[in-house]
């Protein structure tokens, strides 16, 4: 592998790995992030109606 190849690989792989690690760090470390990024509200309209009818 040429020097250019090493540079290309290290920059490319390093950039995406750093970005991914930073994103995970940001999600995990940001205070109150659990509340902000809790994921999808996994309830479809019929499930919601079913739950409300059970109340």
């Amino acid at each position: 592998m040429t020097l250019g190849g090493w540079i290309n690989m290290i920059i490319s792989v390093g950039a995406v790995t750093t970005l991914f690690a930073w994103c995970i760090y940001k999600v995990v470390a940001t205070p109150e992030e659990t509340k902000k990024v809790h994921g999808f509200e996994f309830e479809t309209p019929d499930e919601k109606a079913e739950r409300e009818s059970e109340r």
Partner: protein
Amino acid sequence: MATPQASENWSSRLGVIMAVAGSAVGLGNFLRFPGKAATYGGGAFMIAYFVSLVIIGVSICWAEWTLGRWGGKRGFHSSPAIMGLIVGRPWGRFLGVLGVIIPVGIYMYYVYIEAWCLGYAVQFATGRLGGPDIDYAKHFVEYVGANADGFSLGLGMGQVGLFVLIVYLLNFVLIYRGLAKGIEWFCKWAMPALMVIALIIVVRVLTLGTPDPTLPEQNVANGLGYMWNPGNIGEQLRNPQLWLEAAGQIFFSLSVGFGVIITYASYLTEKDDVVLSGLTATSANEFCEVGLGGLMSIPAGFVFLGAAGIAGQGTFGLGFTVLPQVFSHMAFGHVFGALFFFLLFLAAITSSLSMLQPGIAFLEEAMGIGRKMSVTILGALTALGSLFVWYYSKDLKALDTIDFWVGTCFIFIQGTILIVLFSWVVGVDRGLDEAHKGAAIRVPGWFRPIMQWLCPTFLISIFVLWLAKNVFGWNFQFSGAEFAPSGYITDLIGGDGTPPSTVARASVAVVGVTIAFLTIVTHLAGRRWYGADGKGATLLEETR
């Protein structure tokens, strides 16, 4: 029955990352990307790739997440209903029909490919594959039925049919269990497993050294060089085909414009972040694609088979012919072969699961039916389509034709509609203000001109290039340009002395019937969504 609070607690931070990443990471990360990068010269391709990532990938990703959450906040979860609201006119819902057709259409053939992956994993694990004397090219052709229509319908252990049924059932069982107990539960263990398996294989590949001392040039460093060595970057960047391939890879790999993200994001609430979530999904996909996929398939193939063994291989050739040969030469090849194809299976199923939710959400709110009924209808529709692809397997013509029109052409159109709606109908300033609600990070200011001008222009340019190449058959020469209808067109209308392909025409008819069905349902849903007594009527007034 879980309460909403229980659902929120259940969706842990890690669960969010895994679920979002699962929809993005697919086969293209481990097979298509390395093949393209090696073919077009590592350096120039990666420049075009990262430029496309910023201009197209991240921009459309943020736009789709934002519009999805915006629609969900108003009680809608399907692409047509949300787009009708964005436009502020009932006819606007037809702009979103492709957001249902695309995932449903892709699902029809994606489960078939998924079955190949699971079948290969089982065959490696049981020792049916992995021997050095097997003709892997012939095996692949017979296994997937590329030699004759109906050839792959058998249900024996050595045939793909059994695995088609298994993956089809598995997908619908998980979907039937619901989003919380199905998709996210599965992704929570499947995505970490996928990354761990990929890391194990990467470590194995990078420690292969020089397996055959009589061929010292076939070593890992040269294998990486084959993938990453930059050629004449300046000259290569002037090649429009390189830009087309790099932008296409970003576009299809990130699953932007599919209609999946807009539906997923519609289940978020206003205080939920979309900017960091979108970027996390994108970065997870890029890590799997560049960081893992870029160090795996091509270097491994080069080390055992040399440049001649991997040159010019397409996605399926690299994955199902070259790599099985590689594993057959490797110590513990059965184990690594089984792991690799199980990795592909996990990547595929986490994607295929996400393709069903847009259709389910659409049928629920368009027809006013429950989840069980919508799963049943979608199950019947996709079963017919998948059976068609499975039976008409000769030369993989049905799969290839549907992939061309639905999995490529339609995605360009839907992606363009999406970014134009965000940047010009909603307005980029209003759109970003909406994105920033509850955001953990802010979209950098320099993204405003990118989303407003560069992204639509770049996307339309790439689409025109794609049409020029794949429809009109441009030879990519500016001086001495020649045009000849591509194989996808001559399949439909016939070429010089070549009759049209009946299977290709039938495949387009299957797509046409699906479009007609979903368009009629969308039309009928208009009154439910926007009628005087519907909740959307007031919302339409508000958004005009």
